[in-house]
């Protein structure tokens, strides 16, 4: 493989996003990477992702799981010596990904399903999210196969009352949806 070529076009596109300009401040210390609660799953770390953005590696950035695995725990935000709102950047990148027409990937599907579940019930039911997700990904067959594969976990969760097969809706769901709609309209996001 030849040397990687720096291309400033993509970096400038990201810097132009509302929270994207903060990435410029990153000094690559790696405090975010070591603070991350999901660092086992995350590839690359926020630090690595920022250096890819800087180098203009658009494909590598969009294929990264960084902003999907992020649980918004805020540990990186708290520790960043440059005060970068890494959370904000991660959300920004999620929307950038969805907007740039990558909506068919499994992570995008999960993202949509998650919101769908939230909108319809006002809370997240694990069983509901997973079923919806599998149905979208590969219709009924996948839903059945995956359910069978996960049945041990599911049964254990049920036994300990950690999982509800028929989660109830929250009170005032319409109100919650109105709040979300308003917030999204203000930020200019679409689902």
């Amino acid at each position: 493989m030849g040397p990687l070529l720096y291309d400033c076009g993509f970096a400038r596109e990201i810097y132009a996003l509302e929270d994207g300009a903060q990435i410029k401040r990153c000094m690559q210390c790696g405090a975010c990477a070591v603070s991350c609660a999901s660092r086992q799953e995350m590839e690359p770390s926020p630090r690595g992702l920022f250096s890819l953005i800087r180098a203009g590696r658009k494909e590598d950035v969009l294929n990264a799981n960084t902003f999907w695995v992020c649980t918004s725990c805020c540990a990186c935000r708290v520790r960043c010596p440059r005060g970068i709102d890494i959370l904000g950047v991660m959300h920004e990148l999620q929307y950038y990904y969805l907007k740039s027409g990558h909506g068919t990937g499994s992570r995008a599907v999960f993202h949509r399903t998650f919101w769908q579940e939230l909108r319809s019930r006002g809370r997240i039911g694990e069983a509901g999210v997973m079923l919806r997700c599998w149905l979208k990904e590969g219709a009924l067959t996948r839903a059945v196969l995956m359910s069978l594969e996960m049945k041990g976990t599911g049964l254990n969760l049920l036994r300990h009352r950690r999982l509800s097969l028929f989660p109830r809706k929250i009170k005032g769901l319409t109100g919650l949806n109105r709040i979300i709609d308003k917030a999204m309209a203000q930020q200019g996001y679409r689902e």
Partner: protein
Amino acid sequence: MAAKTGVYLCSGCGIGEAVDIAGLRRVAEKDRRVALVRESNFFCGRDAGWIQRDVGDGAVNRVVVAACSPRFYGAVFDCSPDIPVVRVNLREQVAWCHEPGCEDTLMLAQDALRMGLARAAGAGVTQPFLLADPSKTILVAGGGLAGMTAALEAARAAFRVILVERQEFLGGWLRNVYRCAPVGPPYTELAENPVPLLSREVADHPGIEVCCGASIERTAGGPGMFDVTIRQGERLRQERVGAIIVAAGARPYDPAKLTRLKNLGYGTNPDIVTSPCFETLALEGGGRVARPSDGREVRRVAFIQCAGSRDPNHLPYCSAVCCGETLKQALYLLEAAPDSIVFIYYRDLRVHGREEHFYRRVQEAGAIFIRSEVLNVAVRGGSLSVEADDIFLGCRSRTEGLDLVVLATGMVSGSGGGGLAEGVLNLDYRQGPELPALKYGFPDSHFICFPYETRRTGIYAAGCLREPMDLAATLDDAAGAALKAIQCVEMTARGQAVHPRALDQTYPEFNLSRCTQCKRCTEECPFGAINEDARSNPLPQITRCRRCGTCLGACPERIVSFKDYSVSLISSMIKAVEVPEEDGAKLRVLIFACENDAYPALDLAGAGRMRYNPWVRIIPLRCLGSLNPVWIADALARGIDGVLLLGCRQGEDYQCHFINGSELARTRIMNISETLDRMGLEAGRIRVIEVGIMDYARIPDILDGFVKDLAVLGPNPLKGF
């Protein structure tokens, strides 16, 4: 005047519990020079007046205070200048670190008192060395930022200043600089070049005499009496000044040498330039930079840091300013055209202190920082490209289409050669015309304690001549050097040592009638304080002297002495130690401890209540360099079983306050160990150990280990002769 010694025995702070005071009183009363003995447990407070009263009554003319370490309560026990005060350290070095009530502890305390009595008996009254007409003028060599700031600081403190600049104009290096890195809050914006304003202020100040286009032909004399010959064109003039600040600056690393760094391509393409060259381009273009090859304005630029720096084949050190300079230059481009693309290749971005804010500012302006090792700079498709081992991406990376590549080069002190500021002062010293340099051509000084002091007393280095530094640091540095110069002229006028033995009024006196012209003192003096006449007689220049006593240690004829410190005085202290006659029962070890680090370390061991062997007897020395080998002979002839020398670390990162005292001591010991062999004494009876002040925890191991090794050798065979 007959000696009338007053002995003040303190029993406070645990001394009374550890030592039988009556036993000490017996020792004092046996000495016929002792006029009176007083006991108290609170001499440093309630009963402090006793000493002053006895002195005032004329009952005593020498004072021995057997209490705490001389490092404490100096002001309480000091009497008038003509009364020698000797402190016997019973607290830190006896009571706190030895078995209370034990026979050995008492013997140790009694020996300490005997040594103190001997010291008091031998001490003379010091008259300060006063110059007839000491000059308080301060000469500043160099009219750059450091020189001008130092001149202004000194002039504002109402000292007359002469500023000598080699070029026709003030300003130095900064004259060729477009803008400066920020020096004030918010530390994010480029600062105007301070030179025009500063040079006007300097030129207008009534206390500063500016000599531009001038050089110094010769510098003779010493602090308070430097005779400087200044040449301005054809005109020569003579000035007498008190102290000198050298701020001759640094120069950029020779670009011709960069051509040896083949991968950076310097010299192969006109668009690969050094950072000083970039600065000139920016100055000419008023912030816009035209490419040298075709004059087009540059839009894509790569800066490469550490070009020839931190490289064992070029400059092995970091020049401290190049990172800041690059940030500044990147901002020129990004401010002139915000869509410019700037890559900065760096190894470590060394921006310290508040420059961090500036770093952030340049990041936010859009510069792209690439931590990497640059592999090569090449021409690719008509423009430049840089290939590097990218540490953040973990692979090789390349930037292309560059209009200009800037190599950030470091700085070199002085003007080459071995000496610092070669040809600037032209000192008329026996040791040569230059200030000695330590490493990389920067001045030799005690980096931690005395950063401004060079190895020539009264001559202070400031600015980039002293070490590479940025603007803000230079301003502080110049002010610091000015304060040091002021301290020097003031203390010299009062006849006191300047540093490190500030306020010391004693000075070495030479009994020249016995001098054999062996030149050891003139050669070994670390500060060039002793000149020579045509017949090789030493000509001591007292105001240059730092009172370390190296000459005293060097002189084989023992002709050098201070009023309170001489060969015979220390010998009399050695002879005051009582050596038990019986074979092998109790060994006696003499410790010569450097006052600056080893003695405080011994105190700290005591303060930490560490226990060590009570057979040791401690004599503080001004510096281990003042150790005269005759003392070793005295000690061994007296039957003392071993001699331990505790001094500072030597070598490249030496800690000696007087440069090479411990090194000299080691050499002298090596020289006498052959003689010892001939006398049938083992060389192992003498040991030199390096102790820093923070090594106090090692003290018990060092002392006990030495005593143990001596026990193996057995008692000194000369005992009882």
